[in-house]
């Protein structure tokens, strides 16, 4: 009798547990599986490959043609409707003024237009065309640009976009009194007061000097136009709900730490655009969850080309989901390397820095973290109009390998000789600071291992939380650190300016001082309108870094930034940088999303 009772009880418990398992399955299967509608569309094109060479592709400022906006001609091509869920790896702070930087323009770019934009409808990622401006010309003086605005352009409150708005926006972009004037990055080219309205729809902008990078910079999504009246109306323009631009989408819901939503601007002045009804940026910080969201079709594309996944992880995802996902690898706007504190011994000795440069096995870094395809870490990105070819770079000391792929012995010998000359022949203890962000800790482990193997250093990795690491960089309270950076554009000024020039962030953190000759080279190339001559100056700068002083930065490789796009999304074209083509007015869903 007791056994029967026990059996009955056990049976009931098993039934109860079975019901829980069934409930689990029910919950899991209850929702419509989004992937069912994510069949690869016919005719979907393979992702564009990184441009092998950009020489001559970038708009030459000496001969800027008047370019018509093609929006109206293309508007009847796509399919309308649907909300596109996007993956954003970090929730921004809540300051939404378009000219104050946090990295918020990844989310609010679609509310605004720029004067010009990178053409989001072509496979040429360097193609720049008008946005609010119908056309523009560079005057013979080499510093005056005249922009002709679309006469039908209007703000989302129905008022027309005028030249006065453009003048106001340009000055606002370089307003040093703003609380977070990160868009001062355009300040080397433009000073407040140097723009004027010629008439209602024509604006003239003077640059400080001839500046070949001005137009490529201005076309980035960091430099949006905003309504003068709205900005001066007393409305708190830092609030999400008060975002008011001329762009294809308007701000709707914002759920902190969860999602940011935008809806179609029904009165958008570009006829027929946008195609989709809205965008939801979902904030997913965890890598595994993000991969799951892409695989299950819960997100259809990345908000902007940063996913938090390493190049190797992204390639694995692409291989696993080749039928449903395209992965776009954007070169030259991000790098991973070691930042060196040049204010302390022995790193203040150029011979030690050169030894480090020679001893690092970049090939190993590229294989393990760069998916074997990331461009080698020359000071200037390889295979660009201003850099060496990768083939050429791989013959250079510090970058070359033995025929079996191992580290070049000659480089190790030379590194040891330099260290002996610097008075540290037997190695020393070195702490490698690694912020617990992206793959810094893993990169630091490999670097420590290489230093032990090749130089006999007692290298120890010191993982540290991100905020503490940033503070220690600023206070020069570190020896060397695994660090990467993303650049606004893969053009010479943003790259060299940020890493090697006074005022650049890495210079502040490393304490390195560029010699006068280097600064003169930078200034000269920055103002050189002839691209061939400019490339020659840049080559001199790079040669100096390769043979004399590698500076404060040991680049392992130029990391691809990655944009994952479900094949359901149509008319997406690879951007040239992380910070362009964020308006999403030309994409549509097929099948419907």
């Amino acid at each position, binding site marked *: 009798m007791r056994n029967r009772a026990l059996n009955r009880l056990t049976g009931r418990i098993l039934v109860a547990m079975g019901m829980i398992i069934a409930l689990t399955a029910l919950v899991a299967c209850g929702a419509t599986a989004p992937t069912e509608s994510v069949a690869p569309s016919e005719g979907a094109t393979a992702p564009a490959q990184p441009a092998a060479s950009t020489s001559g592709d970038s708009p030459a400022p000496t001969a800027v043609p008047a370019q018509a906006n093609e929006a109206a001609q293309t508007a009847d091509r796509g399919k309308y409707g649907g909300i596109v869920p996007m993956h954003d790896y970090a929730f921004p702070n809540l300051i939404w003024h378009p000219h104050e930087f946090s990295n918020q323009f990844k989310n609010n770019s679609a509310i605004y237009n720029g004067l010009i934009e990178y053409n989001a409808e072509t496979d040429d990622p360097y193609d720049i065309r008008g946005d609010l401006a119908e056309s523009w010309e560079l005057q013979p003086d080499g510093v005056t640009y005249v922009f002709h605005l679309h006469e039908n352009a209007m703000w989302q409150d129905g008022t027309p976009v005028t030249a006065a708005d453009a003048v106001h926006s340009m000055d606002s972009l370089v307003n040093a009194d703003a609380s977070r004037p990160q868009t001062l990055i355009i300040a080397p080219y433009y000073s407040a007061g140097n723009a004027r309205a010629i008439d209602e729809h024509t604006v003239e902008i003077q640059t400080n000097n001839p500046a070949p990078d001005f137009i490529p910079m201005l076309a980035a999504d960091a430099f949006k136009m905003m309504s003068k009246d709205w900005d001066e109306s007393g409305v708190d323009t830092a609030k999400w709900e008060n975002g008011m631009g001329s762009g294809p989408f308007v701000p709707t819901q914002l759920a902190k730490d969860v999602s940011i939503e935008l809806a179609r601007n029904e009165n958008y002045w570009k006829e027929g655009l946008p195609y989709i009804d809205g965008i939801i940026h979902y904030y997913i910080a965890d890598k595994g969850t993000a991969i799951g969201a892409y695989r299950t079709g819960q997100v259809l594309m990345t908000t902007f080309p940063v996913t938090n996944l390493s190049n190797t992880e992204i390639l694995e995802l692409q291989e696993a989901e080749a039928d449903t996902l395209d992965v776009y690898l954007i070169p030259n706007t991000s790098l991973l390397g070691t930042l060196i504190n040049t204010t302390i011994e022995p790193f203040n000795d150029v011979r030690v820095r050169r030894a480090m440069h020679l001893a690092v096995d970049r090939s190993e870094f590229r294989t393990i973290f760069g998916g074997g395809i990331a461009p080698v870490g020359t000071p200037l990105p390889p295979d660009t109009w201003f850099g060496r070819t990768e083939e050429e770079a791989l013959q250079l000391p510090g970058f070359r390998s033995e025929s079996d792929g191992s580290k070049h012995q000659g480089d190790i010998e030379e590194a040891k000789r330099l260290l002996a000359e610097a008075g540290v022949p037997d190695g020393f203890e070195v702490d490698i600071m690694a912020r617990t*962000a992206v793959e810094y800790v893993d990169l630091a482990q490999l670097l420590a291992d290489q230093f032990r193997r090749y130089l006999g250093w007692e290298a120890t990795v010191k993982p540290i939380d991100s905020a503490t690491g*940033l503070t220690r960089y600023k206070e020069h309270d570190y020896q060397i650190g695994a660090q990467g950076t993303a650049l606004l554009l893969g053009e010479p000024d943003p790259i060299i300016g940020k890493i090697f020039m006074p005022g650049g962030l890495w210079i502040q953190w490393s304490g390195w001082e560029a010699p006068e000759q280097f600064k003169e080279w930078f200034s000269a190339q920055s103002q050189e309108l002839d691209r061939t001559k400019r490339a020659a100056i840049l080559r001199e700068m790079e040669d100096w870094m390769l043979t004399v002083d590698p500076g404060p930065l040991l680049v392992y490789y130029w990391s691809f930034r990655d944009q994952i796009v479900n094949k359901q999304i149509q008319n997406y074209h690879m951007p040239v940088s992380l910070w362009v083509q964020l308006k999403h007015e030309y994409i549509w869903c097929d099948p419907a999303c």
Partner: protein
Amino acid sequence: MNTYVIKRFMLFVPTLVLVTLMVFALMRLVPGDPAELLLMGFEGDGQFTEQQLADLRAKLGTDRSLAIQYLDWIWGMVRGDFGVSMYFDTPISEDLGAKLPITLELAALALLLAFVVAVPLGVVSAVRQDTVADYASRIIAIAGVAMPTFWIGILVVYFLVTWFDWLPPLGYANLWEDPWRNLQQMFFPAVALGFYNMALVARVTRSSMLEVFREDYIRTARSKGLRERAVIVRHALKNAFLPILTISGWQVGRLIAGTVVIETIFLVPGMGRLLVDSILHRDYTMIQSIVMVIAFMVLALNLVVDLLYAWLDPRIRYE
């Protein structure tokens, strides 16, 4: 009883004061200036002048002496004002009001699921001692205790994606507005969060039941001819419940702490995730407020558990 409760409440005060001192001091000891981090941005790329930094410090109040900052914060809390988030510049009480119920729902669901599975599992394990069912139950329990919560969370996501091609819906649906969607979003985080508790409670239930089975009153109950079910449920389980309750009481604190990781993995917009983000941003005011809320909740829950003892066991009296 009332005197006891009042005394316990009085003891909250020194404990909470100690917590305020610890959280305030620890946050200031850890490197990282909220104003600098705001200006530098998440990746430290921001450019700013020293004047802008000074202005922001003045706005955030971090330029004042530590004593003034501390007293200002305490005075605010005494008045029920948690202040403003340094990072988001929004009232903290709004955030807590929105996120605390989500975390509580998650913790409650995790506890419920843990109990629903653990108690039967422990009972079966005890009544079927040294059988296949017992071994299976013990394996599950040991695995649950051995595996950290974050790992379980990752495994759950992995299996959901791999086996079901499914993830909980993104975003957040309020329990009262869209209960089905809410259940889809909260069920698996609760499973992952409650797994450890389930394992622990199952183990304690088993050992407690085995102990009670050896008591004379169980033998008496059986010899009286009571049905086995009645013996197990009414006599054994009820008496075995005190240790289970004890373990569950202090597990609640652990459960709330566990939400920090689980909410991040499953995108649950609760207080745990807010705490993680606030630590990354050095949002002092937000961190302090969240820690205080958690500390108060743990104290209050411990009190509730102590009171439940008296309810379950009439022999226990509080003076």
